[in-house]
């Protein structure tokens, strides 16, 4: 069943001097229990995509056209208030820099407890959860009450505390009892990211968007966090959209890979299908950019030229200026996204021949 159906979405940013088209007619689907890897280089619009789903776009952005249907509701049509019903509950997000995502002045247990309590309160009182309601809950449960003297520090009620510990265990944090009392700055990057994941998943979201969650982490930590995300996806019945610049990372954890370039979807395929037969020239070039072997026995083919200036986008296919297979048609027309029988989608005139390969 399709969880999220994005159709022809175009988003523009108004800056002082010009309008930037961050997303241009983007269409993709996310199914239940699916791990989607959205891959692209800087400026391709992948972050905008994530932010638009959860409704956290900056004020100078504008949805020019398109729809985003999450379980029959068009998220595009919702205002900030209505979006609150989904944000953090059914659709959760974790970000790249864990230190700035966690509140530095509250302990770990308070932050996770807040997430847990939020979910429970929402379930009980439906949608009518306001700030005042939450404040009252915090006070009764002893969350976020600062205290300088450890002896008079209020502790969370035992049941809440054990649930928080359960979540810490789920994200494989060692010595959860100790970690509870810590502040975010006392934790390592990997631990902070796990706390973020715990907070996000404690809401039992149907969809988790992870925007470059491991880019700031060490290689071994990254491996652990990615592995964790993959495992939890099945346990908690969530779909994950992983936004990353690293194709290799996507290949290791994703079920499906979506390659973006200059605000558009270039290719969209099941992961094994993608790696066995990449179709879009950009996707192929990107694969060839990954160092694979030594300088003596392999060659790194770089893509000539550079990513287009987002303010002066070419008319036809965005990749045309750098494409080795470019034709006249590519410069004037934009290829549409077409699919083959294996639902392998690509936007390129090499494949869009009437009566041709497809």
């Amino acid at each position, binding site marked *: 069943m399709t969880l999220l159906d994005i159709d022809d979405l175009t988003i523009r940013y108004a800056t002082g001097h010009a309008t930037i088209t961050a997303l241009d007619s983007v269409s993709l689907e996310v199914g239940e229990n699916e791990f989607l890897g959205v891959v692209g*280089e*800087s400026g391709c619009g992948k972050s905008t995509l994530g932010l638009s789903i959860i409704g956290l776009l900056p004020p100078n952005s504008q949805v020019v056209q398109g729809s985003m249907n999450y379980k029959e509701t068009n998220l595009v049509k919702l205002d900030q208030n209505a979006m609150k019903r989904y944000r953090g509950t059914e659709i959760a997000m974790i970000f790249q820099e864990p230190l700035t995502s966690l509140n530095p002045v509250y302990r770990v247990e308070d932050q996770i407890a807040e997430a847990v309590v939020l979910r429970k309160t929402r379930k009980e009182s439906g949608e009518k959860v306001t700030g005042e309601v939450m404040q009252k809950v915090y006070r009764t449960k002893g969350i976020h009450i600062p205290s300088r003297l450890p002896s008079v520090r209020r502790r969370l009620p035992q049941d809440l505390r054990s649930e928080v510990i359960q979540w810490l265990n789920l994200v494989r944090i*060692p010595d959860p009892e100790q970690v509870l009392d810590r502040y975010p700055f006392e934790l*390592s990057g*990997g*631990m902070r990211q796990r706390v973020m994941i715990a907070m996000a998943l404690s809401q039992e979201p149907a969809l988790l968007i992870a925007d470059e969650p491991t880019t700031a982490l*060490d*290689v*071994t*930590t*990254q*491996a*652990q966090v*990615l*592995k964790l995300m*993959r495992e939890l996806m099945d346990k908690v019945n969530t779909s994950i959209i992983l936004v990353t*610049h*690293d*194709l*290799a*990372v996507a*290949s*290791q*954890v994703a079920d499906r890979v979506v390659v973006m370039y200059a605000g558009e979807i270039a290719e969209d395929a099941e*992961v*094994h299908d993608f*790696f066995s037969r990449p179709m879009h020239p950009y996707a192929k*070039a*990107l*694969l*060839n*950019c*990954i*160092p*694979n*072997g*030594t*300088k003596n026995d*392999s*060659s*790194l*083919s*770089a*893509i000539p030229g*550079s*990513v287009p200036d987002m303010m002066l986008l070419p008319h036809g296919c965005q990749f045309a200026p750098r494409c080795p297979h470019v034709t006249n048609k590519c410069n004037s027309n934009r290829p549409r996204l077409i699919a083959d029988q294996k639902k392998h989608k690509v936007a390129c005139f090499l494949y869009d021949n009437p009566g041709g390969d497809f």
Partner: protein
Amino acid sequence: MTNEAILKTVNLKKYFPVGTGFNPFKRDEQKYVHAVDGVSLSIPRGNTVGVVGESGCGKSTLARTIILLTEPTSGEIYFDGKRIDDGHVNQKEVYRNMQMVFQDPDSSLDPQMTITRSISEPLRGLMKYSDAEIKSIVRESLLSVGLPADFERFPRQLSGGQKQRVAIARAISTHPKLVILDEPTSALDASVQAQILTLLVELQKKFDLSYMLITHNIAVAKYLADTVAVMYSGKVVEYGPTLTVIDRPRHPYTMTLIRSAPIPDPWNRNLLQTEIKGEVPSAINPPSGCRFNPRCTYSEGICSQQSPLLEEVSPSHFVACHFTDKTGSS
């Protein structure tokens, strides 16, 4: 082929005192961060030595100590056979032959200087060239890195890849013998990284350069380096020819590191099969004995008592582990 080392370090150590202690009574309790704790390596002329490790392993400090930006706590550094770590060395002479490219392209160029002026800085500071000579060398350097010879711009007008090329141009402008590359492509996109790596290979051949490559990216190290040294908690734990260390590692940490590096192959999801417990240890109070022992699956009694030394397990392949017989068979 006799390849004397262009650079050699002997038991190099760099400790940083922790906290600003003005308290004379607590002098004995002064703690130190053991950033680099006894590193001996050598870079043969014309080779690339890759120093690989995660954050906190000391590789960046190692680079900065070798290039004398920070004074070593103890140990020796030899450049081209001559000792450079004592106070009497002519630093300008050293820098004419050893330069560095930094990680962050945004912070390696002075934002209010044109890039041509930035590139000419080592020429003005280290050489006695006339202005005309400087101008022509700058043009030549720009061309060698694939930029136009007339590139009078400010850093903010350049992309990340272009800035890094400028940084490389600056580093090679005095035609040094050794260039230390500190994570030269970590901040760049994949396609730009490919361009820069290709450029680095090209420049090495063209100017007969030796490289010391600092990176956390195994794929980059495999591509560029001839020899790889793996660092963990201030020490080198494994050292040898690139393909040997990366394809047939023998140190438990190296094995975990290699297995954690994502490869673009969905049929080989090595990432999902690795397991590593614990975190990088404190650099102030490292574990006793082998630094890796609390996290090592092969660890036994001796590991927490005695720090293993580097031993040759196969030609030119050194590993610091008490149980290389166990790791060899896995």
